[in-house]
C-alpha cells in the first residue's frame, strides 16, 4: 500500500558529517559494489567504455564551494542518497504500490516486481534520490542496505550499510533516529544536525552535520605594521635602478626595446 504509515517504530537512517567527509567516493563504490549483487536488480552501467559512460548509483558525492561575503571560500564534499523521509512524497505518488515505507523501521523501499517504471516517484523526490535503472527499467534507490543490517550471516560489525562500513573518514553514521539516546541522535543534538530542503516538507530522517566554523581555529595573520625580522633592513635591495656602466647598458637596451 502506498499510503504512508502513521508512525514508524524506529527511524533508521544515516547521519552524514560534512565536516569530516573528504570526498573520496569510497561510499559510492562500496554502495554500488554491494547493491549491484544483492537486493533486487543490479545497478547497470551504460556505455561503460564509450564516449558517454553513465550508470545507476544510489549514492553520489557532490562538491560545493561556499563563498562568504568576507573571508576565504570553503569546499564542502556532499554525499547524497535517499533520506528515508517521514513524509516521503515518492511513496504516495506510486500508482502500483511498489514504493512503500516500512512501519517497523521507516526504510523506504521499492518492490521491483510491482514497479512499472513510470518514473513518477523520481519526479516527486526533491533530492534526486531515485534513479531508473537503464537496463532493468525499474526504480532503484538506497535500501539502507536492508540485506546487511539484519543479516545474521554477517559478522556483527558488518551489519550496517556498506557506505557507513567503508567510510575511511568516519563521516557516515547509521542508527535509530527515533531513539533520543542512540549514538546518532546524540550526535545530531551535539552538532546541530540539519534537514535538507526543509521547505519541501518531506521531514527527512537522514541528518547532515554542518561543517564546523574554520575561522575560529585559524586566526587571520596579524596586520602588517613593519618588518618583523631584525635582519630585514639589511636584506632589502640596495638600489632601485642600476648605476654606472650597468645603468648605461640598461638604459641603452631599454630604449632600444621601447
Amino acid at each position: 500500500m502506498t499510503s504512508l504509515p502513521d508512525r514508524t517504530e524506529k527511524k533508521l537512517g544515516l547521519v552524514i558529517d560534512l565536516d569530516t567527509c573528504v570526498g573520496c567516493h569510497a561510499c559510492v563504490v562500496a554502495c554500488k559494489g554491494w547493491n549491484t549483487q544483492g537486493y533486487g536488480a543490479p545497478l547497470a552501467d551504460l556505455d561503460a567504455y564509450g564516449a558517454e559512460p553513465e550508470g545507476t548509483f544510489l549514492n553520489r558525492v557532490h562538491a560545493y564551494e561556499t563563498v562568504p561575503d568576507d573571508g576565504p571560500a570553503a569546499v564542502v564534499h556532499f554525499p547524497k542518497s535517499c533520506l528515508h523521509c517521514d513524509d516521503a512524497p515518492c511513496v504516495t505518488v506510486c500508482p502500483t504500490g511498489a514504493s512503500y515505507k516500512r512501519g517497523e523501521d521507516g526504510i523506504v523501499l521499492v518492490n521491483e516486481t510491482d514497479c512499472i517504471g513510470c518514473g513518477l516517484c523520481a519526479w516527486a523526490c526533491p533530492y534526486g534520490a531515485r534513479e531508473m535503472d537503464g537496463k532493468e527499467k525499474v526504480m532503484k534507490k538506497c535500501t539502507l542496505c536492508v540485506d546487511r543490517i539484519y543479516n545474521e550471516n554477517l559478522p556483527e560489525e558488518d551489519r550496517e550499510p556498506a557506505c557507513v562500513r567503508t567510510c575511511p573518514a568516519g563521516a557516515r553514521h547509521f542508527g535509530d533516529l527515533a531513539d533520543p539516546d542512540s549514538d546518532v541522535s546524540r550526535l545530531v543534538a551535539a552538532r546541530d544536525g540539519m534537514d535538507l530542503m526543509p521547505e519541501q516538507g518531506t521531514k527527512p530522517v537522514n541528518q547532515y552535520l554542518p561543517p564546523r566554523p574554520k575561522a575560529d581555529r585559524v586566526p587571520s595573520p596579524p596586520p602588517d605594521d613593519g618588518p618583523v625580522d631584525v635582519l630585514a633592513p639589511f636584506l632589502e635591495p640596495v638600489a632601485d635602478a642600476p648605476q654606472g656602466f650597468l645603468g648605461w647598458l640598461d638604459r641603452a637596451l631599454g630604449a632600444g626595446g621601447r
Partner: protein
Amino acid sequence: MHPAPSIIVFTAISGLGFGLLAWLGVGVPDVTGWSAFAFFFIAYALAAGGLMASAFHLGHPERAFKAFSQWRSSWLSREAVLSVATLLAFGPYALALWLFETRLGLLGAVGSLLALATVFSTSMIYASLRAVPRWNHWLVPTLFLLYAISGGALLSGEIYAAALLFLVLAGAQLLYWRTGDKLFHAAGSTAETATGLGFMGKVRQLEPPHTGPNYLLKEMVFVVGRRRAERLRLIALLSGAILPALVLSIVPAGHLAAAVAVLLHVIGLLAARWLFFAEAEHVVGLYYGRR
C-alpha cells in the same frame, strides 16, 4: 522537466477526447445513429489512443494493470481508474444512441462527470508535485480542464461556446505563464537550502558527482532558451486559442472552417503542453548548479 513526446501527446490528445466525451454525455450535439457513431469513434480514438501513448513511456508496460490498485493515495492511479470507468460508462450510452436512437441521460451525465474527473486527475499528477514548483498550483488543473472543455466544444461543433471558451482559455494560459514564472522563487528552494550550507555563504557547485550524464539530469533538468520559449508561447496562445476563436466567429460555419480551427488548436495545444513540461524546473537541479 524533459518534454517526453509520449507524455505530451498523451495529455494533449486524451484531454481532447475526454473533453469531447464530456460534451457528448450531456447531449451536445444531440446526435443519434451513424452520426453519433462518428462522434463517439473520434472521442474514443482520442481518449483511448492517448492512454496507449502514455504506456510507451513505462519501463514495464506489461505490469500496467497494477496501476489500478493505489487510487486511495496516487493521482496517477486515480487517473487510470477514472479513465477506464469513463470509457466503460460511455459504452452503453454510445451504443444506445447509435443502434437504438435512445439517450440514456443519467448515464451520459455520470460519464461526463467521470470524463472531467479524469482530466482533473491527470492534471493533479503534476499539480501535486511540490518538487516542481511551476506545477504546484491550482491554475494547472484549471488550465487542463479548460483545454479539455474548449477543445471538446470545438470537436462537438459548438461554435459559439468554443469561441468563447477559447478566449477564457487564452486568459487563463496567460495568467498561468505570468504566475508560473514566479513560482520557483516563491517556493523558496535554493542551493543554500538544498545543501544546508547557506550559513557559510553563497553555495556554488564546484564539481558534479560524475563527469557523465545521469538519469536525473536527463529526466528532470531541461533548459529552454528564453527566446525559444517566448516564440512558443506566442504560437501556443495564437494558434491554440486566439486564431481558432477568430476562425470560428468570422468564417462561415462548415467542415472546412472547423477543420482549420481544429488543426490550429491542436498545434497550439501541443506547443503549450511542450512548454508545460520543458519550462517546469525541478528543485533537484539545484544540486547540479542548474535550474
